[in-house]
């Protein structure tokens, strides 16, 4: 086979782009089988308690209503591992917004109207949704998200901190945050001769298939889940969400295809969110800036339905050399909606706090914050002692600083005034682990016409998975990229991991590479004309995924920001934001750049605009729509730049890639908060930096 130039690293245009710009790409709720009915869920209006009565008479009386499912009559499900999927199974209400009924009607308008006519009586119980630093329910979590140990200690924190010549002791807070992908969670389900087929808005159809099969007592072959195009997820579609179970139930009960797209306002309560955090960070250092001691203590909540601990203290175990360290998570189970993954869970809030504290230390010692970080660069992963497979944080800091024009910089704050505006710059580091969430399988087939077909249940949630997998296949096959057909997005394909943990491409891509390599070998062994069906090879990476590495494997990055603060209005706006990353080999610079910019944009929202509290009286989120929950708009984004270091890491996978979906968000908030300090001289340790808080501090 003639070797084509390797397409890996080429900026190819995303394969499904044309369907997306013409409106031809169909998402989960955009399949309308004949006879399709529409479902509308009814959320609980108490924060905790029991359903005592349900009156569905009025709803059922409306013309066009097929069914109202409640816990009294909904199909019984096998007990799920994730109890948020046990919908309509009992009379308990664990939090406000929990679904208590589902209406099915022949039109959307009727379904919504009927949902308003479902009358539910409750026996409320006292509830508690307020996270406080001294909450009596707080306990030390054994594990944080990602199966990381909840607590790690080395050395003698107390003694070392007491002895440190220079210290920082600061507490940083962040409210709950919402993923709010543009496509609300949606499913279209139908049963055909005992086979359940679902179009689901999911980050991983294999997992949805397996969970549905378990819940409905079916074999995996009896269920097909299709997630062809997915309108974003950012973690909130990482595992099945209630809508897919409800749609499948409703289709079973009514004997019709059923479509269920969750109303935007209901998402915050049922699809997961980033839990709020209170983080106390204590740093101790020599006068010269050598960190001797570091503690990050995270207080957060989980729900009563299942456990989830935002692992915000985990990244501190990776970052800086310090002989004494304590990282731990305290968590209380409150009557809140279930928190879950949101882009860089753990790293995003954790690095916000840690990197602000490092900045505070730099200010305290009057050391350039870039230099302080470089000074504390570890030789090996501080927590484990393992060598890094690759670590180019210093290069990110240096090259990022050069590109940004970091120096010369007057380190004194509140000196750069332009009329009512104060201007400042800030820096923060970022890290995100290289994670193989699990193994994947793939099939590669050579056809007589010279084309190849690659099958793997990857999910493209906007990453450009199709495109990059075609590039990986083409490189392994030595074939032109446009000779590769890619099939992804269905559980009928060889199983793949979810698009999550920034690990999708590594897992799917490795399987694709392996299958393609096996196909090349097979073609070599079986020369001659191909049979009409072609020749195929399959491979999986379950062994590789299960193997432990002797290396600590992480991506790193450095963020630089320039902000302006309006001293009259308290408005903080970003003038420039530059990210410099070391994330292994970048397989497609076009789509990679877009993803990194996207992460930084979400980080900007986390720092400046995204705000939501729990209403202690009613127990729900106060800002549940997109008018009150402010995700950044186009006008908020100026001068975002992304660069990366060509990193060659042989300890990862055949592509040498680390994953780029999340690291973009990680250092953004701290860089902005540090720039805010430089602009104003004020440490505002409570995100987001909204005008109310800014003005209070400016005038205070």
């Amino acid at each position, binding site marked *: 086979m003639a070797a084509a130039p390797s397409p890996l690293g080429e900026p190819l*245009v995303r394969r499904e782009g044309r369907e997306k710009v013409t409106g031809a790409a*169909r998402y989960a709720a955009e399949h309308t089988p004949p006879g399709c009915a529409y479902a509308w869920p009814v959320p609980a209006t108490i924060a905790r308690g029991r359903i005592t009565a349900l009156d569905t008479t009025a709803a059922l009386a409306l013309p066009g209503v097929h069914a109202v499912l409640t816990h009294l009559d909904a199909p019984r499900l096998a007990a799920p591992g994730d109890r948020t999927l046990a919908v309509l199974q009992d009379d308990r209400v664990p939090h406000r917004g929990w679904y208590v009924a589902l209406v099915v009607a022949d039109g959307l308008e*009727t379904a919504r109207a009927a949902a308003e006519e479902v009358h539910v009586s409750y026996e409320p119980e006292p509830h508690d949704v307020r996270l406080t630093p001294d909450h009596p329910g707080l306990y030390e979590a054994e594990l944080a998200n990602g199966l990381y140990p909840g607590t790690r200690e080395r050395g003698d924190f107390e003694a070392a901190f007491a002895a440190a010549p220079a210290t920082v002791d600061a507490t940083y807070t962040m409210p709950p945050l919402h993923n709010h992908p543009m496509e609300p969670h949606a499913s279209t389900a139908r049963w055909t001769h005992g086979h359940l087929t679902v179009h689901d808005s999911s980050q991983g159809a294999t997992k949805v298939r397996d969970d549905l099969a378990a819940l409905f007592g079916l074999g995996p072959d009896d269920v097909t889940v299709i997630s062809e195009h997915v309108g974003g997820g950012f973690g909130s579609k990482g595992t099945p969400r209630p809508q897919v179970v409800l749609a499948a139930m409703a289709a079973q009960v009514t004997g019709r295809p059923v479509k269920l797209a969750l109303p935007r306002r209901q998402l915050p309560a049922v699809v997961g969110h980033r839990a709020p955090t209170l983080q106390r960070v204590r740093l101790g250092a020599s006068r010269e800036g050598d960190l001797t001691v570091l503690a990050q203590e995270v207080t957060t909540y989980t729900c009563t339905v299942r456990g989830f601990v935002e692992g915000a203290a985990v990244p501190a175990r990776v970052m800086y050399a310090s002989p004494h360290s304590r990282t731990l998570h305290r968590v209380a189970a409150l009557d809140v909606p279930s928190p879950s993954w949101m882009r860089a869970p753990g790293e995003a809030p954790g690095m916000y706090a840690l990197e602000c504290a490092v900045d505070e230390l730099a200010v305290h010692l009057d050391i350039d914050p870039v230099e302080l970080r470089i000074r504390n660069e570890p030789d090996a992963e501080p927590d484990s002692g393992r060598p890094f497979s690759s670590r180019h944080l210093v290069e990110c800091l240096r090259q990022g600083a050069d590109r940004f024009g970091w120096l010369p910089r007057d380190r004194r704050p509140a000196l750069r005034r332009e009329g009512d505006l104060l201007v400042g710059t800030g820096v923060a580091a970022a890290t995100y682990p290289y994670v193989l969430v699990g193994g994947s399988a793939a099939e590669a087939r050579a056809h007589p016409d010279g084309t190849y077909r690659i099958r793997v249940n990857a999910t493209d949630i906007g990453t450009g998975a199709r495109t990059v997998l075609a590039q990986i296949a083409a490189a392994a096959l030595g074939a032109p990229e446009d000779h590769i057909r890619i099939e992804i997005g269905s559980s009928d394909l060889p199983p793949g991991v979810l698009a999550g943990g920034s690990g999708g491409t590594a897992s799917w891509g490795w399987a694709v590479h392996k299958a393609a390599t096996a196909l090349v070998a097979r073609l070599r062994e079986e020369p001659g004309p191909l049979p009409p069906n072609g020749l195929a090879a399959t491979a999986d990476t379950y062994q590789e995924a299960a193997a432990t590495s002797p290396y600590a494997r992480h991506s790193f990055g450095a963020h630089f920001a320039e902000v302006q603060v309006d001293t009259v209005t308290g408005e903080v706006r970003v003038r420039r934001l530059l990210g410099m990353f070391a994330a292994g080999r970048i397989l497609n610079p076009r789509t990679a750049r877009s993803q990194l910019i996207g992460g930084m944009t979400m980080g900007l929202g986390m720092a400046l605009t995204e705000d939501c509290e729990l209403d202690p009286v009613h127990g729900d989120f106060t800002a549940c729509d997109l008018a009150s929950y402010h995700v950044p708009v*186009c006008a908020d984004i100026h001068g975002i730049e992304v660069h990366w270091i060509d990193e060659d890491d042989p300890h990862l996978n055949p592509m040498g890639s680390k994953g780029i979906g999340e690291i973009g968000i990680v250092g953004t908030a701290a860089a902005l908060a540090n720039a805010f300090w430089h602009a104003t001289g004020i440490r505002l340790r409570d995100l987001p930096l909204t005008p109310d808080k800014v003005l209070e501090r400016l005038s205070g």
Partner: protein
Amino acid sequence: MDSSNRPAGGAGVPRSAATGERSEVILRVNGTTYTLAVDHRATLLDVLRERLDLTGAKKGCDHGQCGACTVLVDGRRANSCLLLAVAQDGRRLTTVEGLADGLRLHPLQEAFLARDALQCGYCTPGQICSALGAIREAADGFPSYVTPDDARSGAPVELTDDEIRERMSGNLCRCGAYPRIVEAVGDVRGAAATGDAADTGSRGAGEAS
């Protein structure tokens, strides 16, 4: 969803639908005329997506807060989730499906592809329809919040990057494609001034008064 065939009350039949729950409307979508009976509660967005199988316009929030449902109504961009279908009787509607000329993409669609101005793609049809409207609005002299006070009233507004950012702020993109979107719209702004961008038939600002 068959018809009970009550008239919407176009000129001449103004009151007879007052007690009914459905009316017949004529919608002209991408050059095709549809006559259909709609539930008065149905939004244009739902009729497009669920009745006409035109799923290009997306439902992101259903409350006019995200812009994913943006279509052009008589040449001007609007949130189709807040428009009752019954009130659109006779209107000329353009959705993303109506922009390409056969296999030839609209210049904005080309620009979005070339600039990678999309990721998940869910907001993209709304972005593109919105961009089309925004370019035309600027050409027709509609100012924005960032248009300088001393810009001449009614004269075409130069679509600087800041103008694009402001005018495109009604379309949320959670993937964060904004810088790329600004570039893509910027690529097309010149073509728009010469009338190549599309036929949007927008009313000029001068005519508005």
